[in-house]
């Protein structure tokens, strides 16, 4: 099951995932607090894709049952005063077995503001596999140069790289329209 959420206001949400699910949160300058219970034997993929021009806070709490799997992926662009302060808590109790956890966050900072992502892997079980990674960087100068050698102006190239980062090579109209002004 795939669910898309387009969020313009602060969100507090409790979700129970009882079948394999892909959640896509598209947000702009909204604080998020999402509590997710991943039921036994279920796989969750959760994308949070945001374009920030103001500081925001995210708190994502994931509680795992037996043999559950979660993959949390953040793709964030910070522009102007945009800044992310995120805490992602994955919790596995001592009696829970066979859990797989992954957290990957990518932040493209178009501004000079520092952001933070805290991956808290709160694992009390001896039978769990967990990984996390974060990358933060500016627009890649090699990518800009490459696109300019193909005839795009610096500004066109910047826009294409921002759009590509947030939407990917194939995107739907609803998502494009959601971000178009900010891009």
């Amino acid at each position: 099951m795939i669910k898309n959420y387009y969020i313009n206001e602060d969100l507090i949400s409790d979700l129970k995932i009882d079948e394999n699910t892909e959640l896509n949160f598209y947000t702009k300058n909204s604080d998020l607090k999402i509590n997710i219970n991943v039921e036994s034997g279920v796989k969750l993929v959760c994308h949070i894709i945001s374009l920030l021009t103001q500081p925001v806070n995210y708190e994502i709490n994931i509680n795992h049952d037996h043999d559950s799997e979660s993959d949390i992926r953040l793709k964030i662009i910070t522009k102007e005063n945009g800044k992310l302060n995120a805490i992602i808590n994955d919790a596995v109790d001592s009696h829970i077995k066979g859990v797989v956890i992954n957290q990957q966050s990518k932040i493209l900072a178009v501004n000079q503001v520092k952001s933070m992502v805290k991956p808290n892997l709160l694992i009390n079980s001896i039978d769990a596999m967990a990984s996390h990674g974060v990358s933060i960087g500016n627009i890649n100068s090699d990518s800009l140069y490459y696109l300019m050698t193909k005839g795009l102006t610096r500004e066109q190239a910047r826009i294409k790289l921002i759009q590509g980062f947030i939407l990917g090579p194939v995107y739907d109209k609803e998502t494009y329209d959601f971000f178009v002004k900010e891009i």
Partner: protein
Amino acid sequence: MELLRINNLKVQVLKKIIINDLSLTINEGEVHVIMGRNGSGKSTLVNALMGNEVYQVSGGNINFLKKDITGFNTDERARMGIYLAMQNPPVIDGLSTAELLRNNLSSRTEHFKLFNFIKELETTATSLGINNEMLHRSINDGFSGGERKKNEILQLELLKPKLIILDEIDSGVDIDSLKLIAEVLINYRLENPETAILMITHHANFFKYLEPNYVHIMNNGELVKSGGVELVHQVEKQGFEKTINCLMKDMVND
């Protein structure tokens, strides 16, 4: 007709002079090759020609189509008709080759026809052995070295430049792919005989397919010798170091 004229070019990177007093003229339809050892300044020359900001021109000038382009931005040079097929094209996350070309061509062409574009794109991709799915993937994402080079050639086929710069197009490419790339370039030149090529390479493999009119040997940021294909044979036989030493001795004796 003269296409490119480089006059007494000096290029520096972080205050270190890499190219010193280099002059070169390329006319329409000519194929020039610059050979040289690692660090001789070949890639610096390519980047200076394309207007890469890291490479500062501190003397001389570059003229293209009789216009001084020394102060032009990279994109202005590209739109004038200079095309660089890069040695290591990067992955461009979230932008496909098809999308890049469509954007590029639709902004350049007054009556852009999407259907014709797709047809030409797919035909060219097929001729280069590029899978259609790769055209809609992020540029160079998951491409092998050879596929990246083919993707560079694919783009030039559609953008139709007047001067093609091939920066080590033969590195990381297997024999079959190299032959395929050469065939596409040969056909392109047949259809666009005024197009000139400037090739940067360490090896002579490619000349079996695309014979150059002029070969230049580069050493320490200077073109120390220019001639015909015989220079390639000399380098192949003696290696760069011995060839350059012989050339230096000849210059001293002269």
